[in-house]
């Protein structure tokens, strides 16, 4: 069964500045959706609004037509990778994988550099390895949809390729919404792209559209 996540009627203002005004995004399970936009356009704010951790003047986020205002209370529907590290430093990878009900052995087969690190404290891992762990957890989390804010930052090219493969392998079971400034990766992995510009989202059909909206030259 295909599930749908729709977001519209989002309004976000900071003082007199209207950051988001005319938003429409549609994601489905089986598809990877990309969101591109220049710095300060409000991408991360929009993703936080969808997750329910940022308040806005108005919003409508619907899962299969049902409005959910605080999606963070429903990990079966939506999980979120913020752009910063969110794992408690005193926990071990083994404990974290157990909390998320995800197999650590499977993770080790994808990323052998983690062999023997299952009891390490997160705070002792490098920032790249920490990021890799977080991206993997959110991709494999048992939600209908996952939002990933800058999943490719701090990853090596080899790790990025493996994450792209994982996203493609897991999209049959869930829908992904990604944003990242490494737009070549977004263009490679995504089935559909939206561009956020001047507070509005534009469905992009080609590279020319993205160019026309001023995101790339």
């Amino acid at each position, binding site marked *: 069964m295909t599930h749908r996540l729709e977001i519209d009627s989002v309004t976000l203002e900071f003082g007199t500045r209207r950051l988001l005004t005319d938003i429409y995004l549609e994601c489905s399970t089986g598809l990877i959706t990309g969101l591109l936009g220049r710095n300060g356009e409000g991408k991360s704010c929009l993703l936080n609004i969808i997750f329910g951790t940022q308040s806005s003047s108005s919003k409508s986020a619907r899962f299969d037509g049902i409005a959910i205002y605080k999606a963070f209370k429903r*990990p079966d529907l939506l999980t979120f990778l913020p752009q910063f590290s*969110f*794992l408690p430093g005193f926990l071990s990878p083994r404990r974290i994988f157990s*909390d998320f009900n995800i197999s650590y052995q499977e993770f080790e087969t994808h990323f052998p550099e983690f062999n023997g690190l299952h009891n390490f404290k997160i705070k002792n891992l490098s920032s790249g390895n920490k990021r890799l762990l977080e991206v993997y957890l959110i991709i494999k989390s048992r939600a209908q949809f996952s939002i990933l804010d800058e999943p490719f930052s701090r990853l090596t090219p080899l790790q990025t390729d493996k994450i792209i493969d994982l996203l493609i392998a897991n999209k049959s079971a869930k829908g992904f919404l990604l944003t990242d400034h490494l737009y070549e990766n977004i263009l490679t992995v995504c089935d559909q792209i939206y561009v956020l510009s001047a507070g509005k989202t534009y469905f992009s059909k080609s590279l020319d559209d993205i160019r026309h909206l001023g995101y790339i030259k």
Partner: protein
Amino acid sequence: MPKIIKLFLTFYRSYFIASFTLTGCCAYIYWLHGIDIFTFIFWLKILTLGVILLYLNTYKKKEFYYYMNLGISKKILLGTTAVFDCFIFLILIILVNKIR
């Protein structure tokens, strides 16, 4: 142990040492002065707990995403562990009162 309790305890662990030290100080003051000082140490405990929670809300806010991705909101996490912390405080004061 149910997963949700394990998660609450994991979060509580991040401020247990600071909070239990303050609870211990309150219990010691109670040991010295008895019931007359209870109102003072009660409000001292509430105030210091408030400061700890404010610190967590400011400097550990990124970690809340870990718990939110597992279905526990920030308010529930802070509220539940604060109530549990007050419960430990009261138990300790009752014990001191019996021994004294």
